[in-house]
């Protein structure tokens, strides 16, 4: 088990190094760097520009820059922002909580709503309720999350003349304001996951409900509510766990637009601004952070998954 985990981690590290190389290559392939962009407005001389480049290490060949950067990572130094001159690590850590909050809340909302819809649809299979719920699920799978957010915003603005507060306040500073601001983003991010979870729950519930062990439970005289919620649903949760694991990376990637739209100071906003400013150290660090998060999360979920489901142990094929 440990060797297995280590092998996955090693492979993940190789992938991350490759990601870094790709990011560096794309970035240096294009004309115009941060320095010339920054100095265009000021109208600085060529000497000043060269001095700045030397300060940021931009005058060295790409490969040297890449090597220096990787060397820095090992020492916990991800570079310094071209603009604010702050260490990227600090900028980043200041913004991580918002993104994590959003991601986790979205997952929570998505899975709760999705499970409910899925169970109700499975139990009322074939009825109008089932049809409506299924249609809702398919619709939410197709509407992109930023469109969901925009439509919600529009509806609330028209019908209730309500719009979220403009300035972000952390949940510990001003909980009411925070809740108002985060509500729509969380719903918008959660609905995509909700639809996927609902569909999966429904189909795996139907499968469970038709299986032999459920027939046995029913024959034993257990109440229908217990049959559904305890016996059938429990068997479906592993399915949902898998899906959520796969969904998490998408949600974290999807926060870029939502954070930008609602003025939430998370990592998505950071990377968006940095990309616009060509703030290379920040862009590189953020991109690689997202990739690393993805890789690590997938490995962790994989190990958890193998622990949770005794049928899935390594080296043994699923039937």
């Amino acid at each position, binding site marked *: 088990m440990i060797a297995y985990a280590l092998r996955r981690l090693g492979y993940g590290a190789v*992938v991350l190094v490759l990601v870094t190389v790709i990011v560096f290559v794309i970035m240096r392939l294009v004309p115009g760097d941060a320095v010339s962009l920054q100095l265009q407005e000021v109208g600085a001389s060529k000497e000043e520009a060269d001095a700045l480049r030397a300060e940021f290490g931009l005058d060295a060949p790409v490969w040297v820059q890449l090597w220096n950067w990787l060397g820095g990572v090992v020492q916990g130094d991800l570079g310094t922002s071209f603009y604010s001159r702050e260490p990227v690590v600090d900028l980043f850590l200041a913004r991580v909580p918002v993104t994590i909050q959003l991601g986790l809340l979205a997952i929570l909302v998505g899975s709760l709503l999705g499970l409910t819809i899925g169970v109700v649809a499975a139990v009322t299979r074939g009825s109008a309720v089932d049809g409506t719920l299924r249609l809702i699920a398919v619709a939410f799978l197709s509407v992109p999350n930023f469109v969901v957010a925009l*439509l919600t915003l529009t509806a609330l603005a028209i019908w209730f003349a309500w719009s979220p507060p403009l300035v972000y306040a952390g949940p510990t500073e001003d909980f009411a304001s925070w809740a108002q601001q985060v509500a729509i983003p969380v719903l918008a991010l959660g609905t995509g996951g909700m639809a996927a979870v609902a569909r999966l729950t429904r189909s795996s519930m139907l499968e469970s409900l038709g299986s032999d062990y459920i027939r046995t439970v029913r024959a034993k005289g257990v109440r229908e509510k217990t049959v559904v919620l305890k016996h059938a649903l429990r068997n479906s949760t*592993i399915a949902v766990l898998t899906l959520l694991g796969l969904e998490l990376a998408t949600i974290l990637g999807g926060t870029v637009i939502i954070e930008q739209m609602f003025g939430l100071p998370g990592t998505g906003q950071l990377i968006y601004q940095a990309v616009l400013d060509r703030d290379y150290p920040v862009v590189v660090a953020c991109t690689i952070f997202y990739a690393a998060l993805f890789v690590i999360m997938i490995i962790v979920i994989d190990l958890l998954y193998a622990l949770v489901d005794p049928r899935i142990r390594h080296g043994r094929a699923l039937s």
Partner: protein
Amino acid sequence: MTQENLLTDTQPAAPPRPACAPAEAPRPPRRSTVRRVVRGVRDFVRAQPLGATALVLICLFVLIAILAPVVAPYDPIVQHRRNILEPPSAEFLLGTDDLGRDVLSRAIHGARTSLVIGVMTTLISLALGTAIGVVSGYFGRGLDIVIQRVMDAVQAIPGIVLLLFIAVVLGPSVRNTIIALTVVITPSFNRIARAETLRVRQEPYVEAARATGAGAPRILTRHILPNMIASVFTLGSLIFAGVIIAESALSFLGIGAPPPTPSWGLMLSEGVRYVERAPWLIVVPAIALSIAVFSFNLLGDALRDHLDPRVQRLVVQERRGWWGRRLISRLAPSLAQGAERLESTDTRTGGTGRVPDPPR
């Protein structure tokens, strides 16, 4: 059965025989291909009513996009300065925006922008990804390892981050949007093409071809490609929907098509400021975008169901992975196995509805 075939079957004219080859032995008549396509479409429509509905919607979408200048009541970038932020009326059916431009005309031309970017991106990345995947899968060894590691790395970056990065680095334009999207999507096609090639490569007929002395180019183009292309095209239909979303996301962020271009994403971002005064600025492009994506998803699902089950499973797996989750099977094999099992369950429900009777 390809999406292209499905879409173009309304022109059943057989391609003209080359005029310069009179002495050749008579070829089998080309009409049989057309007939086969027509029959394929008919079977598909009968077996998949939802898919057929989607097909009709898509044809409508394509027609509107092509005929945009004819269908649209106004020029999408002409500013009617006297009619700013006007609600829907007889003169402007869906109202006007903050610069007095007709929203209906912009939405119609927006379909064109989406279609151009969607078609170009899907075709280029399909061709590129398939070529890379087939070569990588067929020749294997070191080449395969290098190519696949690079593809893995590209996919480890969340799609939107990579898109943002490339699009900004290149600058906002329709062409650059296509390039950025192509970089992000190519690995998905590579993956499925490679998997299918690995399967087909071991078939007896490929062995036979190799035994008769056929070279690699011939085996690849005559034996491997025709036998794996169906799943690639099915994935193409699903990916098309994703491309439309990604395009509008990019232009929403202001780094896709530049401002005067009528694009749904751009319309949405311009409308945000007038949410209370002019909700139609949001609602119209949002509905247009959702219906387009919905139809392509539906068609993709239906095509997937219609093809044979083995293809289904691959496509489902790949579809889950197109937005940057493709590493999963290598990083997390048990997770991937579990997901595959679950998704084959999901596939049996057709994704969109019909659930077979549970076993009793």
